[in-house]
């Protein structure tokens, strides 16, 4: 198995409302997205990060295990939510860390499950961590992915990379 970097991007000084990967090559078996990010919400330690697939947020479902402090809860939904990223009141210069994996992303016959984990980083026991099992119920091949924060923007030095797995 080989992991090939397809593209990587770093947010500049002005921030970015979303990071969009388009024209994703259909030549790999799986996709891996690695993201290091923080948002500009000056009132929160963490905020929800979301993903659209091929420009849509429908036909989605997920279940996730959420850890906070010494407790764990479960969460689920049918929207585009992935978990939380580091917010503006978190420890300075700390970013969330996220991995997201799509097997068989180029299939035109299978639905698209994904697994994902994200940890918004700060020096506090009240920060959450998320492990998600998700599904996009569509047989369409994945050609674009967008990552954004509800109502806020990615700050400078947030980075996202997309890898193809062969």
């Amino acid at each position, binding site marked *: 198995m080989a992991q090939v970097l397809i593209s990587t*991007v770093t947010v500049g000084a002005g921030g970015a409302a979303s990071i969009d990967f388009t024209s994703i090559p259909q030549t790999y078996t799986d996709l891996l997205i690695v993201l290091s990010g923080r948002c500009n919400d000056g009132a929160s330690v963490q905020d929800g990060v979301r993903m659209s697939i091929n420009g849509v947020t429908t036909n989605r479902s997920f279940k996730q295990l959420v850890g906070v402090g010494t407790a764990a809860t479960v969460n689920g939904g049918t929207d585009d939510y992935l978990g939380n990223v580091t917010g503006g009141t978190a420890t300075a210069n700390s970013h969330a860390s996220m991995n997201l994996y799509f097997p068989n992303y180029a299939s035109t016959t299978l639905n698209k499950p994904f697994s994902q984990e994200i940890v918004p980083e700060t020096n506090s026991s009240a920060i959450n961590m998320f492990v998600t099992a998700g599904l996009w119920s569509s047989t369409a091949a994945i050609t674009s992915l967008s990552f954004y924060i509800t109502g806020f923007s990615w700050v400078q030095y947030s980075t996202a990379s997309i890898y193809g797995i062969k």
Partner: protein
Amino acid sequence: MSNPIRLEVNCETGEVTEIELTDAEVAELEAQRVAYEAEQTRLATEAEAKAAQKTAVLSALAEAAGLDVAEVTAVLGF
């Protein structure tokens, strides 16, 4: 460039383009922010109410059992 931008990465060419949001997209972003903050406030209020209810129940149980709240908490396992 006055509106926020989004970063579009063309994975075939590697080209990264900064695209300015339209006024409508900015308005949608702001609406999302307001809705999100309202939801966070609602969740926080709900959590505070549950915590207060739990404290009241524990106090009532403790009083009825002739114990203190810490002892009731220990007996119930939380």
